[in-house]
């Protein structure tokens, strides 16, 4: 059970949050211009790696804000948390 530092509320129990999959996948601005393969790439293809992963999380039972998290899936270490629209840490 993680302890997650919501950028708006501070440290809260994982129970209050919802995971939202891989981060930094932008919805194409002009979907109609895309081939089936390109659209499928956006729609279906998600990484699920053992190691450092960029994820979206939502403080669903709190401020309801979405934010980004860098997490090492091999040991669940949360390496960074930053707001939507901000650049991921190097």
């Amino acid at each position: 059970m993680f302890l997650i530092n919501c950028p708006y509320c501070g440290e809260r129990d994982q129970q209050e949050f919802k995971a939202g999959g891989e981060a930094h996948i932008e919805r194409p601005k002009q979907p109609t211009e895309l081939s089936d393969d390109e659209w499928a790439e956006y729609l279906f293809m998600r990484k699920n790696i053992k190691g450092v992963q960029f994820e979206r999380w939502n403080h669903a039972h709190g401020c309801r804000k979405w934010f980004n998290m860098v997490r090492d899936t091999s040991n669940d270490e949360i390496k960074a948390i930053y707001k939507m629209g901000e650049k991921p840490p190097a």
Partner: protein
Amino acid sequence: MIKNLRVKSSEYIDETNRISFKFNGKTYHGFKGDTLASALLANDVHLVGRSFKYHRPRGIMTSGSEEPNAIVQVNPGTNRTEPNVRATEVEIYEGLEASSQNCWPSVEFDIGGINNFLSPFFPAGFYYKTFMWPASFWEKYEFFIRHSAGLGKSPTSNDPDIYDHRNIHCDVLVVGAGISGILAAKNAAKNNFKTLLVDEKNELGGSTIFENNKFNKIDNKTPSEWLKKEIEELKNIKNLEIKTRTSVAAYHQYNYLLARENLTDHLEAKDKTNKIRQRLLKIRAKKVILATGALERPLIFNNNDRPGIMLSSAIKKYSEFYGVACGSKNVFFTNNDSAYESALSLYNKGINVEAIIDIREQSESKIVKKVKEAGIKVYWSHTIVDTAGYKRLNGISIMKLSNDGTSVTGSKISISCDCLGVAGGWTPAVHLYTQSGSKLKFDEEKQIFLPNQNTSQQISVGSCGGDFKIDEIIKNLNQKLKDNLNIKETDLDNIKVEIDQENSKRNIWLLPSDKPLGKTKPFVDYQNDATAKDIKLALREGFRSIEHVKRYTTTGMGTDQGKLGNMHALGIIADTAGVKMGELGTTTFRPPYTPLTFGTIVGRNVGKFFDIFRRTPINDWHVENKAEFENVGQWKRAWYYPINGETMHQAVQRESKAARESAGILDASTLGKIDIQGSDASEFLNRVYTNAWSKLAVGKCRYGLMLNEDGMVYDDGVTTRLGENHYIMTTTTGGAANVLGKLEDYLQTEWPELDVYLTSVTDHYATASLCGPNSKNILKKIIPDLDLSDENFPHMSFKEAHIGNIQCRIMRISFTGEHSYEINVQASYGKDLWEKCIEAGKEFNITPYGTETMHLLRAEKGFIIVGQDTDGTMTPIDLQMDWIVSKKKYDFIGKRSLYRSDTMREDRKQLVGLLTDDPNIVLEEGAQIVSELNQSPVEMLGHVTSSYFSPNLKKSIALAVVRGGKDMMGKKLFVPMENKNINVTVANPVFYDEKNERLNA
């Protein structure tokens, strides 16, 4: 006559408080302070159960939570009964009853014992190999296995006890109150850390508290005396909370731990009532100090499982702590010095020790010399090759061990004994450590797994961290505390420790016998009856991974998770396969460390608190009018209103007719309502719905369909434009929260540039849906000054009005195909509004109807219900709802997916109507549809999604999804059922009023 083996008074046993209890129906006596195990041993009862597979007699083996054999059913036949309880952990009280579990008809005469003689036929994987074929026999096998296995019985009536949960936040959590845990907690608390110390036992002090070995001294006192003084001092320390009878079950990431605090299990029945029995502690600690100690290992030799064979350390604890001799003729079998401490402990109390069998060649430590001086015979380089005695050990045979330890030589010596203490060295209790995600490394010299890298703020101290000698323990503990808690001075800086302890050990995982392995029974997992030869067989059969061997042989898969034998299983695999232990890795230790009751897990969330439920503001009226309710998500919705003993079918037929012929009223308060405001609100709706919204005039309503990005229908509902920049969206009852979440997601992450604000207002409004040809007349009576003409208030429009001085929003929209109004008022006025409608509608026979009639009426019109007629694989095109998909809009959620090759296939399942050839037959929802009856196998074309008998059409109607159904209009299909085939014809899904004339009736 029952033998009394109580040997001396112990300060932990209150001999003035005599307690009677029953075991397997027979009455025994013990004292306050006894466990069920110590009291039974004092009465010379060793035989307490039968093994799982061979039904071999088994005795008490340990004195703690690692016990594999003494698994009992407590208070059988009562509503407080509990199976799978370790007798070594049950504190006795007046009136306690317990019985053996795994035996039938009794522990003394067990029918399954015949399995023991059939054991050549029960090798590893026996259950997998034998009971798999033929499949049809499985039921018979299962009956046999379950009847003779008897894994305890669950109570058959409600649990009378109360359970509780508590959240605890602390700076330092110390798990285990042995010497290391006590010193760690004391120093943490003294340095202003808010500290919690927990231990599974009822007394603090671990094994040091009865450590009277005269060769070890702390500040010139025996460890026991010294530790008692330390424990006494704990009372005066602030910041320190101590919880005994509290067992940590799970250690999750980020120092989140679950512990069970046991509050009444040790009390008499009369003292248990109205008290919390067990409490689940949910602990979030900044730092965790694991001081969980070590478990003594047994040795693996032929017939090492007879009642009377115990861990050497358990014999010592029973003698020193409980004042009980486990036997009158004791022998020890060891590979290290520990057994000598136990032997000396017995000797000092005048209990007979016959001999010590030591597989080492020699040891020169003081304690060994002392044992020799006491005249106890020591057999060096010897091993036990067999044991004798069926229900109780009565002798052992020993032989000289070869130099390499793989065989025996010379002649056999027999020694008669009734108790054998086995000492195979110590295994650090790293279970919680590994649960936390931290990794182990194998120490080749000590032959143990030790904590390696820590992933959370934690340290392992004392023997669970690999320190076994008191001087090492204190020195390393001191350093770890200073480093981890960042403190400069501790109490431990000036402690003087003198010790004489030897760590010399000869490790042989599987000891040889004079018989070939195949003819012996060296048990590795006592509870699951897995032997060393089962493990070797699994390796011969090609199993390599430790996890596979574990499952195939069931080693370590009992309720004790193989706490005693797992290391030996690993050792035997490593030796046989010729690999190093460290390369093999360990099996995963999973929570809970010891079993938890369901009561503890659910706490107070039982009965009506099991899940949240939501009621509408009009609920009381439904209850007063005898509605039946159905669960829709968390909502309790009125389902139908039976009168004069009507069945559901009769009530629904009546309600449906009334709604079309005159007037009906539905509580629609549960529909999700989202208030949308902002200068980009119209653009936002354009992007989330499939149809166009920019041109919707203020005061108008529009039906919208929402897709997922994959093009599949997600939700639907009517949205009304209340003002230039203000909309109110309705969603399905079950989808409300998810729709809001999804919309917020797009707003915050994809379209942050949009000026739009979403607020859930579902609970703020009560909604009465008035429908039928007389709905207009009824509304007229309630709001006389509102112009209800079609010109002023047409279908799909909205008016704000007042009923008396109550403000309301009225939408003229319809989910039934009838002329209808949805009246929304502030939630607290909901019941008042409803009653006004009922009152005004009396002269028109207004009929309240529930969700079932609503479903029927909309099915007559072919309106879909998302989640019933769709299942996440239906596009609007599949639903024959092409009309709602805007061709002009450049983009909306899911648009691109509607042009993927897969979603454009002609042979997708499509929504159609179905009519049964016999109009009286109502199809079953979920029934499969085929086009051929005499073909096998036959293609399943689709299934029925909604089906009713329509009282208005006087025939059966159904909606279905059928492969390529769009082009099948008029085609004959079949719905094969168990006893008959039903002939059906594909039809237009709009069964009633196809031209929508009734909307303006």
